[in-house]
């Protein structure tokens, strides 16, 4: 497979980068690791006229510990670089496990945390070459007006398969989105939309520049279930974080790769706070996850399987936290 032609820019300031993205907001794309973008370009799924490289923009890959003990992670930090950061393994285990679940070591050496957070959604139909996709009419994501996953649907149901998104949401992360007219901070819990096409709240010309993970002190874990242990998208993931030892003060449960956005299991989390990490509490939380999920589609796995998988993931994650 070959890349289509495009223009390539290598700005050496963030300002120049944002100008270049704003100059062609519909057809200019940022290029970081390229491990997802270049594949989608080879498939003809996305055809940016201009790639704006982040390689020479200073400071975008830096990882620093803030005064309050949180982590400020530059969006262009590679996944390998971040996984090996001394602060990550002990204090943010959910994040480290999520990072190491992505792709392969080869991919992680090039891919960036910002790229994984913004990862476009996936579907059996769209993530194929344009010749292959001619077997069906174009769908919502490919300039058509149907969904091949849910025939009667009015929207795209492609899945959000970012491994790091659920972990970062569970850790209360915030992203900074920069644009020419200024930057804004967005809690990651509010960053995603339940739609396969417009799957984040990013506006045209906006670029995620860093991710802030607060100190928190939560115990956290992350589990990915997939057919292969490497180079595979998940059948389902869960990130869980709890604060408090005897009494659970706060809990966050986030499930990925099941729907078009990372699903935050609010009822299940409230049960964990009310009943604690007891056997009964964990079981009740696992049951409540079904209601939290809402509608589940058959994309990649049958909906019944996905529901049972989420129940099992909640049980496993909470049991791990109970023992930690």
């Amino acid at each position, binding site marked *: 497979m070959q890349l289509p*032609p495009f223009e390539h820019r290598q700005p050496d300031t963030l300002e120049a980068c944002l100008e270049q993205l704003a100059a062609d907001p519909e057809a200019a794309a940022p290029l970081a690791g390229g491990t997802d973008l270049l594949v989608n370009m080879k498939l003809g799924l996305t055809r940016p006229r201009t790639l704006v490289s982040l390689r020479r923009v200073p400071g975008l890959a830096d990882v620093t510990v803030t005064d309050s003990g949180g982590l400020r992670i530059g969006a262009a930090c590679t996944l390998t670089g971040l996984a090996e950061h001394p602060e990550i393994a002990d204090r943010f285990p959910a994040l480290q496990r999520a990072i190491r679940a992505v792709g392969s*070591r080869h991919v992680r*050496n090039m891919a960036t945390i910002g790229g994984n957070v913004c990862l476009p959604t996936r579907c059996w139909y769209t993530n194929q070459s344009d010749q292959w996709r001619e077997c069906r009419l174009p769908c919502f994501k490919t300039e058509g007006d149907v969904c091949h996953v849910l025939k009667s649907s009015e929207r795209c149901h492609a899945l959000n398969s970012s491994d790091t998104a659920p972990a970062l949401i569970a850790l209360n992360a915030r992203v900074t989105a920069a644009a020419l007219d200024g930057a804004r901070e967005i809690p990651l819990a509010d960053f995603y939309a339940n739609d396969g096409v417009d799957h984040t709240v990013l506006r045209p010309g906006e670029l995620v520049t860093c991710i802030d993970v607060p100190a928190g002190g939560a115990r956290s874990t992350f589990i990915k279930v997939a057919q292969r242990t490497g180079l595979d998208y998940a059948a389902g993931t869960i990130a869980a974080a709890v604060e408090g030892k005897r009494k659970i003060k706060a809990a966050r449960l986030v499930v990925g790769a099941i729907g078009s956005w990372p699903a935050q299991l609010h009822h299940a989390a409230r049960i964990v706070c009310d009943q604690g990490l007891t056997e009964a509490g964990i079981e009740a939380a696992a049951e409540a996850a079904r209601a939290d999920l809402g509608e589940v589609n058959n994309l990649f796995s049958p909906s019944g399987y996905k529901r049972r998988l989420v129940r099992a993931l909640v049980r496993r994650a909470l049991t791990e936290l109970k023992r930690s």
Partner: protein
Amino acid sequence: MSKQLITLIVNGDSYELAVPVHATLLEVIRDELRLTGTKRGCTSGSCGVCTCQDGAGNAVLTCLSLAVEWDGRPVTTIEGVGRPGDLHPLQRAFLEFGAVQCGYCTPGLIMTAKALLDTNPEPTEADIDEALAGAICRCTGHIKVRHAIRHAIERLAGEGSDAEQA
């Protein structure tokens, strides 16, 4: 079609080239520099036959790298590993242990294993699992590959201690 003048540093040698902006590092290494040890496989980052090492020794997927992003950055290909008659312990072990059948995945596997051993000379089985997850072999079932890597680890450790005693 726009071309850009870049300098690629491959196995320590500098090459000044005019490359199309949309050319991958893999295409330039193979088609322009005629270093055909690095292979085309899936061209989408899932098989590892295109693996080379960057300046820090990390395994990188050249099929998903733009040549213009590698201007001035060193890269090591399989041609830069060992020499005929003076093979790297990994190359020697792959031959001795029957870890080469069709040979198509071999450069990628050796670069992958080398990237691991260059930074972690005493990897656990789990470390090797993790490093090799990105490089697949359809012929050997990976068993002889793993034997060869284990042997190369011992050989390299032995060479290290030989050097200390000398």
